[in-house]
């Protein structure tokens, strides 16, 4: 859950990149880390990857990022990925604890549609185990790997993943080429700000 530290003038926010195995979650974080323009070197922390010897995410990838999103406050973003492989479900539940915003990274290749749907259902299930509801959490979709062959049309991905009562922003991306990566990050940040405004005016 987000936290405001008025003493340090900081807002802490946790964003989790979720999705099926090999959909490009780690690549998103790597590309943000490698290509982000920052005012000072301290704005971007080191990237930590807890991976297997085969370079697959075992626990999570993480890096901290600072930006001025709200006047007078430094917003400290914590970007996480989860392991996509089915067997690591417990780990995904642990990483989701305290989540404020979610980027669901779907693989656009036709033969990955079932995995996308299962992973999305798994996200909803895991949130429920934490007494959270996806409808209450800002999230965006990223349709990744648009540079590959045998792609599902965006309309079909929307039909499968974005057919809830409230349609959420969806971004086409080719994370390996950095296309759509920053648009996605800015998209989830925008939704988080909207939520903060709503909370600020309600309380």
């Amino acid at each position, binding site marked *: 859950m987000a936290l*405001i530290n008025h003493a340090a003038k900081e807002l802490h926010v946790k964003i989790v990149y979720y999705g099926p195995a090999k959909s490009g979650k780690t690549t998103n974080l790597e590309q943000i880390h490698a290509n982000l323009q920052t005012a000072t070197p301290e704005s971007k922390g080191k990237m930590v990857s807890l991976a297997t010897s085969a370079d697959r995410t075992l626990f999570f990838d993480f890096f901290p990022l600072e930006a001025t999103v709200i006047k007078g406050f430094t917003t400290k973003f*914590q970007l996480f990925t989860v392991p996509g492989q089915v067997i690591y479900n417990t780990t995904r539940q642990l990483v989701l604890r305290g989540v404020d915003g979610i980027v669901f990274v779907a693989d656009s290749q036709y033969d990955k549609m079932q995995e996308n749907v299962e992973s999305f259902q798994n996200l909803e299930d895991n949130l429920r185990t934490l007494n959270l509801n996806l409808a209450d959490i800002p999230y965006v979709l990223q349709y990744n790997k648009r540079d590959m062959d045998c792609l599902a049309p965006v309309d079909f991905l929307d039909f499968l993943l974005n057919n809830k009562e409230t349609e959420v922003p969806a971004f086409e991306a080719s994370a390996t080429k950095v296309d759509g990566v920053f648009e996605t990050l800015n998209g989830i940040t925008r939704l988080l700000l909207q939520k903060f405004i709503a909370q600020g005016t309600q309380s």
Partner: protein
Amino acid sequence: MIPQLNSEDAAVFDAILRDLLEKSESSIALIVERAGYLIHQCGSLTGFDPTQVATLASNAFAATEFMANLISEPDFSGMYQQGSTISTFTLNINPSCLLFVAFRSELSAGAIKFFSGEAVRALAVQLDLAYSRAPEKAFDPADINPDDARQIFHRD
């Protein structure tokens, strides 16, 4: 409602952690939110990145706590990592926060745990106060413009 900490909380955290470091001779103490945020720190250690350690400690704690639940251990309250030069304790303060302490391994782990226990109890009181505080509003909505977020993060 978003939990909020103010300068009074920071002063109390600082006093408690300084007292802990002084009594226990530990090197560094961190208050960590379970989501992985570093809330407060006192002390220093060469080559130590508190932000990274806070995140790793909170996730390691969560994983070990889950394991404890699996083996039906009802009272998991802390984690001890014994090193050859530096050792660490990660202790549960309340459902939201943890205390992380790093100390030279030649020091008595029992003494560190004892003094950390005192600190945990004092921190829990202040954190309860902080989390139950209900300020008028989190932010002035005039200071937030969601459209600004279209361009917050840029590619180099």
